[in-house]
Structures are given as structure tokens and as C-alpha cells.
């Protein structure tokens, strides 16, 4: 809700409403049938603030990229494709995501990209900072390598080994956008 004054003293006073946004890409899961064009187009979405009020409505463009408005502590993004509803809670972190060189940073990016990394860690989303290959992350890294033309494409000689080395870190950063 915005607190707006009724102005009666000329036009010098005004009230500012700032919305903060984060860019979100809605994409199909990264595997071969979808190729490189994975954006989810034409999905209706709405965004609610932390009180449940709808603050934004729209339809996703071809690349699936939307600017989600964040109000207060968090916003909830609801994707309304047909009768199915996907719901995401979106917070703005004041600090950047963990570095891609750390296990936690690799896990968070794999998770954002839709790979299965289990449910360990404090948030129950598999981001626990425990180094690969002690858990599902090595398997997910292997899938990412298989999905990435720069690693698995024609003429590439990088190892498909499930180890998150320099090339795989670059692929993670590029795909996740952070």
C-alpha cells in the first residue's frame, strides 16, 4: 500500500513510489530436446507482495525473462500456465550469490537451473556447501556438461567428468546469469 498525501499547496510536493525488481528467466529444464531456446513464452504470471496483494500482472515474452517487482521483505511470483500454478518466493539478497568457485555457489546455480541436487542444507534445497563429489552434485554437474555445447559440443575436448572445473564454472555462470 502506498501512503499518498492530498496536495493543496501548489505543485512542489510529490510522493515517490520506488519498486525494486529482479530479472527472472522462466525456462524449460536444460536437456537436449529444448536445445538452446528454452524460454517459456506466453505464460501468465502475477506477483504478490508480502501481504498477499497483487502488485504486478503480465505474460512472459519469448525469452521467458520478466522483471519481478519486490515489495518489502519478499514477493511471491505465481506462474499461471493453464490450471497449473507454480509459486516462487523471491527475496532480494543484499549480498551477492556465493562465488562460483565454492561448492555452495555451484550448488545454488545448479539448483536455479533446475538440476536435482537433493534436499540437504539449512534451506532444504540441497545448497549445503559440502564439496562434490560426496553427493548428487557430481551427477548434476555431469548433466550440465552434457547440456552445454561449449563443453560437449562438436570439436570440444573437455572431459565429461562431473567435476566442476574452470569450464564448468564458466558454463554455470553463463547459464544462471550470476
Amino acid at each position, binding site marked *: 500500500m502506498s501512503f499518498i498525501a492530498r496536495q493543496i499547496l501548489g505543485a512542489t510536493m510529490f510522493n515517490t513510489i*520506488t519498486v525494486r525488481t529482479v530479472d527472472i528467466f522462466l525456462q524449460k529444464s536444460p536437456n537436449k530436446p529444448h536445445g538452446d531456446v528454452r524460454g517459456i513464452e506466453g505464460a501468465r504470471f502475477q506477483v504478490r507482495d508480502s501481504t498477499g496483494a497483487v502488485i504486478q500482472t*503480465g505474460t512472459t515474452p519469448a525469452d521467458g525473462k520478466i522483471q519481478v517487482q519486490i515489495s518489502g521483505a519478499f514477493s511471491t511470483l505465481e506462474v499461471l500456465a493453464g490450471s497449473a500454478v507454480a509459486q516462487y518466493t523471491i527475496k532480494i539478497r543484499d549480498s551477492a550469490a556465493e562465488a562460483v568457485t565454492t561448492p555452495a555457489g555451484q550448488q545454488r546455480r545448479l539448483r536455479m537451473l533446475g538440476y536435482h541436487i537433493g534436499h540437504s542444507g539449512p534451506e532444504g534445497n540441497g545448497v549445503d556447501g559440502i564439496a562434490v563429489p560426496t553427493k548428487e552434485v557430481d551427477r548434476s554437474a555431469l548433466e550440465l556438461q552434457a547440456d552445454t555445447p561449449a563443453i560437449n559440443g562438436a570439436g570440444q575436448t573437455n572431459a565429461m567428468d562431473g567435476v566442476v572445473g574452470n569450464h564448468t564454472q564458466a558454463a554455470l555462470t553463463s547459464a544462471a546469469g550470476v
Partner: protein
Amino acid sequence: MPTQYTVNQGDCFSSIAAQYGIPWKKLWNHPDNAQLKALRKDPSVLFPGDVVTIPDKENRYESRSTDARHTFTKKSEPTHIKIRLLVDDKPRANLPYELHVGGSSIKGSTDSGGYLKADIPPDATEGTLLAGVGTSQSVYTLAFGTLDPIETDDGVLERLAMLGFDTDGDLSAAVQGFQTKEKMTLTGVVDDALRARLKERFGQ
């Protein structure tokens, strides 16, 4: 006997003046309201519990001939709202909008600075602003007359929230967020310097 009116959330001088049929300037400049005027400085922003003295109406005598029809018009003073829309600190410039107040809707477009100005009835308490078209539309819920004075903690919180700071936690954390962004000394304390900067950024 003058009436002592106690301000509720959502009241301002224009809404109270409209309610009693008195021009707001007369109310604002009335000697009995001098103390309140000095305290709040802005007739648009009052705090619940403030007391406004409503003077008695004065009779006005008009002479007209008896053989013709005469029209007397009740003067109603328009009030307006002026809002600046920003997204991540950039103006939402030249953006088409629809403002729904009461039963009517006003269509327009923000200017190059992201400002929009609209006349509203003095007794309107809420409105819905739909901004943008096409793939993304924003919905703003507006509560008119609810902005509290910047001298109060409520007034500071409201302004910080509208500038996009997270005010769900405590005031001090939100103030620090603002101070960080403004490159001010991090104190988390609301003082005159903070109020001045906040007023400048928010516009009132």
C-alpha cells in the same frame, strides 16, 4: 461554539475543510490552529490525534431582486495527488496509466521524469493505479491522506517503505539501508539530517 476536531488516519486539511464546508486556507490560517500549523508546516500531512479547531460558519448576506431566478454555487476545492514512479531508481517515464478513484477512472501518461498528477475529490480515501501495458502491468494501491508527518516514526517508516526499503523488520535496519544507499554515516538513528535527506528523496 467552534468545534474541536480530532484527526483520524486519512484526514488532512482539505478533507476536513470539505467535510465542514470551509475553505482549507481559512482553516489552516485560523489563529486557533496556529500552533498546529507551526508543528506540521504542511496542511497535507497531519497525524492521528492532532486537533483542528473548526470555526463557526459566518452568515453571508446577499441581496438579489425577487423577480428573477438566482443561482448560488457551492464552491468545492479540488485536491490533487502528485506521484513519482521509479523502478530501481530510474523514472518510469512516458508510461500509460489508469487511475481508478471511486467510480471513475482517469487515463494518462507519466511525464519524462516519471511524474503523474491527478485531481481527486477531497473525500476520496483510496485508489488503484494501473501502470504499463502489454506484457507487464503494475498495480499500486493508494491510500489518500494517510501519509504521516516526517517528524514521527510512522512517517519515516512509510517514506522508507515507499522508496523500496524493507521495513518489515525494525526501523533501525531500514534506516541503515537508506543510509548505505545514500552513503551517509551508518547510525541507524533517525535524526534531522536523515529526515532532510529522506524528504528530498521522497518529495514531501
